[in-house]
């Protein structure tokens, strides 16, 4: 799994920080930022963060 954040779409709902705190943080501009790429154990909550993002700013590319 590879995750990216579309900064143009992100508008700072900050739900991803709550769902996957090891993966997402907020940058100074109030927009989400990646801490690191998810490991296998983080994939469920990373997917959940993407689903819950009202701005659909978290893009996940599944392997394969």
């Amino acid at each position, binding site marked *: 799994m590879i995750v990216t954040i579309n900064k143009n779409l992100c*508008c*700072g*709902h*900050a*739900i991803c*920080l*709550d*769902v996957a705190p090891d993966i997402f943080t*907020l940058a100074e501009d*109030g927009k989400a930022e990646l801490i690191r790429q998810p490991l296998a154990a983080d994939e469920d909550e990373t*997917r*959940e963060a993407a*689903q*819950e993002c*009202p701005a659909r700013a978290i893009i996940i590319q599944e392997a394969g």
Partner: protein
Amino acid sequence: MNAPLVIVGASLAGVRTIEELRAHGFDQHTVMIGEEPKLPYDRPPLSKGFLTGEVGEDSLILAGDDRLAELGVELVSGERAKGLDLAAQRVRLEGGEEQPFGQLVIATGSAPRVAPWQRPISGVTPLRTVTDAIRLRDLMAPGRHLIVVGGGFIGTETAATAGAMGLPTTVLDADAFPLRRAFGAEVGDALRGLHEHRGVSFRGGVLVTELLGGEQAEGVRLNDGTTIEGDIVLVATGSDPAIGWLVGSGLDLAQGVSCDESGRAAATVWAAGDVAVHAPRRRATAHWTDAVESARTVARDILRAGGADIPAPRVTLPYFWTDQYEYKIQSVGTVIGHDECRIISGTVASGDLVAAYGLKGRMVGAVTVNRPRELALLRRSITTGAPIAAPIPA
């Protein structure tokens, strides 16, 4: 072939349900029935960027033809469900056809409440569908005067959009403050000030008794006898779950489709989104995140009913937001029913409010304005039941 999964409602909840199902390997044929002749679309921009023209119809789409094909969804659009035969496991369509189902997901959302004084004349519109939004957008021409009846989310967001566009706008509400039921009196009062500062007038504590005008709206009369002139009247007095088509089906319809915590309403029937009323709640809630969460809950219960070993999704705190002018106002947890409101910093008007709400010494809710980072911290504090005296952990 087994009867398909049928989703009634080409909605956010409907799309998110099938997305979650497919993510977990659900391989049954799926039919989605949508009343409007449209692809499923997202609604939050309809009261904001869509009215100004910044957001086009295409960018509202939740799942286009390619995505629907990828999801294995057969979309039947422009077709209204008019009845449900539970015993025969069929949905009756207005066109006369019957759609059999193996499992049914009801995701028909809600419909704007029709005001007793409302008449279908030019200039009067609700705001729920993209068709409503196009009508309103076309009405919002220079020189017009907008009357917004109802100071809830749709009413105040539209007023903010219109105000920013320079359209003379008046918001009317039965309550003294806009959005009091969502954000409480403190923030509601500040929001009223914010609108008035931007030239949008707010009149609280009034009821509309009459719509003025013949073929074209000319204004409204209020219960205190005064009249307000305006040639656009947005009726934003709330919405009700769209359950008319389910009357007589045998489903329990109190203030929506009654279902258990997993969203199940009957052995093979689930409800997701605005239309669903879950056991612990008294009525349906209609926020974007509620629809997303209920869709995921329903999808997982459908998977479990099919024998999959999958846990229910994590329970998240209630969350909603509103964008008005350059302010993003966010709320997490329970803001209503608190016994303490602690302003940690800032004000609504200066666009930097951080407020925590407590009940019996524990933090239960928070509202922030343009402070997403603080909101994230407060969300954590609410989850852990932090004391209201120290709402933000060091």
